[in-house]
């Protein structure tokens, strides 16, 4: 099986960033087994803005976490370029996250003891060719809030700091798990605008999870997950701007 996937990998197109092959994920919850992913096959392309859509519990976060090197599948393989993430050591996964992935989460996860600028710097300090924290924050429209602590920022502002933090290292991929989930629609739009601007300006491959179908209209490609399986994949003929979206 592994030689089979190797051979398939040989013929991959050059602009494929992630190659997900027959991935399953089973969580053992005491006596019960939860099958979060039941055999997912998908390729993600360079520079693409992808939206992962699905009901709550359909396995979106599980897939994203596997792509981001936070979790490993029970079966199957995930290739990041040439590298098989399912065979990486803990140390290699840390390095992978450190140099290639940017994360944005529903609950921001900023470090309360660091200012906006410092929250970005915490990542740029360990990255290889980062932008300046100030530039990253400017990209998300926060150039005037540099020295504020998280406790002094609104939810939308905190999420934009999180985006700045994620992109500041110039990651190859940007993974966002319900980035607008905790925000009202108006603030949500501002956050999505920031994501779109980053995707267009830097060409970063972006995956955004949402259970809000309206958001899907700003994506290049939409992937539907249902009960741990991909049920539908389609391309948007025309992409809408965030402010044109219908929540």
């Amino acid at each position: 099986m592994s030689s089979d996937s190797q051979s398939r990998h040989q013929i991959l197109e050059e602009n494929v960033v992630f190659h997900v092959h027959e991935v399953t994920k089973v969580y053992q919850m005491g006596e019960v087994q939860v099958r979060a992913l039941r055999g997912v096959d998908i390729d993600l392309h360079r520079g693409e803005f992808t939206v992962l859509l699905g009901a709550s519990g359909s396995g979106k976060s599980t897939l994203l976490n596997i792509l981001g090197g936070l979790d490993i599948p029970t079966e199957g393989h995930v290739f990041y370029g040439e590298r098989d993430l399912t065979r990486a050591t803990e140390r290699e996964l840390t390095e992978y996250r450190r140099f290639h992935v940017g994360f944005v989460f529903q609950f921001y996860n900023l470090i309360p003891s660091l200012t906006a600028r410092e929250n970005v710097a915490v990542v740029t300090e360990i990255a290889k060719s980062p932008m300046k924290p100030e530039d990253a924050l400017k990209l998300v429209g926060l150039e005037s809030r540099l020295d504020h602590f998280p406790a002094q920022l609104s939810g939308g502002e905190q999420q934009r700091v999180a985006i700045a933090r994620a992109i500041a290292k110039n990651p190859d991929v940007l993974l966002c798990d319900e980035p607008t989930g905790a925000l009202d629609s108006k603030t949500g739009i501002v956050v999505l605008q920031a994501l779109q601007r980053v995707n267009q300006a830097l060409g970063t491959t972006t995956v955004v999870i949402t259970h809000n179908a309206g958001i899907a209209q700003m994506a290049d490609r939409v992937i539907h997950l249902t009960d741990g399986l991909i049920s539908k994949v389609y391309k948007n003929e025309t992409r809408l701007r965030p402010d044109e979206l219908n929540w």
Partner: protein
Amino acid sequence: MKAIDIKLWRELWAMRMQALAIAMVIVGGVSIFIMSLSTLDSLFETRENYYRNHHFADVFASLKRAPLSLVKRIQEIPGVDKVETRVLAYVNLDVEDFKDPVSGHLLSLNANSAGLLNQIYLRKGRLLEAGRDNEVLLSEEFARAHDLQPGDKLAATINGRRKVLNVVGHVLSPEYIYQIAPGAMFPDYYRYGVLWMARKPLASAYDMDGAFNNVTLTLSKEGNEQDVIDRLDELLKPYGGIGAYARKDQLSNRFLTEELKQQKTIATIFPMIFLGVAAFLLNVVASRLISLQREQIAGLKAFGYSNFAVGLHYTKLILMITAIGVIAGIGFGIWMGKGMSNIYMTFYSLPFMIYVLKAEVIIAAVLISMGVAMVGTLYAVSSAARLPPAQAMRPEPPAMYHTTLIEKLGLQRFFSQPTRMIFRHIERRPLKSLMTILGISMACGTMMVGGFQEGAIKHMVEVQFGMSQRSDLTAIFTEPTSQRSLYSLQSLRGVEHVEGFRVVTAKLQFEHRSYRTSVQGIAPNGRLMRLLDTRLQVIDLPPNGIILTDYLAEILHIKVGDMLTIEVLEGNRPVVQVPVVGLAKEYLGLNGYMQLNSLNRLLNEGHVISAAWLKVDRLHQVNIYAELKGAPRIAGVVEQESAIKSFYETMDETILFFTYITTLLGGSIAFGVIYNSMRIALSERNRELASLRVLGFHRSEVAYILLGEMAVLTLIAIPLGIMIGYGLCAYLAFQFDSDLYRIPLVLGLKVYAFAALVVISSSVISVLMIWRNLAHLDMVAVLKTKE
């Protein structure tokens, strides 16, 4: 069981490691408390019992010689119950195969009797038999040191004549619980012993037939101690009485009393430290637990639990942790107390030990620890109880941080983000950081106490015998002798230098205060005995006036320049006034020093000496001992160095044990504080640290933030701990000061280094344990939910 109580048990189980770490600190406090107090009670009880059953005398007096007919008059003193006279002699002993000089006290004892007062306790063999002049009973420690069994022999030089004595038994005596040679610093069972033999041969050797030179008595119920002493002194004056003294001034009893006093100090300080730290830890853990359970508290209240019920719930949890510590502490304390009492029994040659555990002690331990635990957690519990349910339902707002002082000074460009996180976190909860530092410092301070004792005693010995008394041997004459005797000592092969001195017993008085001690007449520029001032510089002894041990001046409230009244208690018993011309630093005993000539002039007895210091050539030491042992006019010879050496050996064992205990205690405080603080920090910052792991930080980089904070606190705590330790030692030294000895406050580098090392090791162990937890930091789970 009610559901809310099931919750209690489950939570206790879930936090068992932390609960254990806290319980351990409580165990430390409670067990020392129980151990010290029960040992103390046991010692008091045993001593009282021993004294009572063996008729330990109330008043003691030595004199030159009085006829036995005087006993009737002593008996007639109002308030006197029983009187016993004795012949007592200080003699040179000769134990086969033991080259060093050995001296001892020889006491008269009737045949088949344990004595009327100060009754001996027969441990082995039998009592003296009638008509056997050469039988002797030995104090047990001395007999054991030389392995002298009943049937063995040893020789004594009794008034110049060598006499071979047959050992018939080993005994203990309430009068010699603490067996220490006159003028010695510590007990030395090889070189000093107490012996009992028949009165007749002893009396005839010292011309004491029908006479006595020592009397002890007990008081009747209505007897007034001071009154009896005064009248006894009056009676004995014509017979060369050197002053009667009460039981409280009896040497062995005094040492024992001092020891008990020290025990008491330790019994109060250490449990206080431990329980204080335990209170802090409980506070930290309870606060965290409660903040984690905000939603649960809100839920409970929403279901209709009252504020009181919620408060009670958390109080129970805290009391349960405390109870674990208290119960284990009591058990452990009793075990240690019994062990300690037995150590004391052997150390003090007590015939038995009554272990006393008073109910009050247990009750106090329980109440104090429970009380301390409650006080420590009062705030956390009451804030949980008062939390309004609606507010409690919502997650806590993000913590507010500020830029720290160091950063405001513009130093932040030197710090990486993780370093800034460390400082800001410390600064955000200044009180908690401070308490953590204080807890660790206490651990550090506790450990210094162990090392302090050893260093202090070494310093005492170095000063006393290295700088002040520098002779190898002291030869004590049977009575004041012409200075010409020095020539015969000087002429012995191998003797390099000899200095004679005179010792008289005297009562020193200033205003209404007085103190009975000895005045020494010494050579003004002697090489073998030098007086030192408080800065340990050699003092010149002026031709007129007296120099007093500094602590004696304190007791008498006398200053340099004041006139001291000296009432000599020997010979012509002159009473004179002499100016105090200086103070000398001495750690042992209290003395007055005058030039030999001026003391002799005062006594009006011509140029005499009563003892001599000798500096000898190592090679000839053995010959010199042999010569001195045979010399008729020499009552005893004291050798310094080997006595010190043998003391160090015994001391090393005791100190090792004590150091072991303090290290264990200090280590457990340090571990308790550090481990708990880190566990709490990990739990509070779980999310933050997991986010960093998601962002690509390695485990070690995340650990840096958590451990860096602890490292900073520990590094601040160590110097503070050293200061606290210094204060503790100073307090102990001050408490332990007495006229018997003063403990100098000297702390070697080793003491500091050791304390710091144990604290650092405790942190390293805690770190290793936390490292494991960091490996399990669940990034995915943590990011899913809002705290």
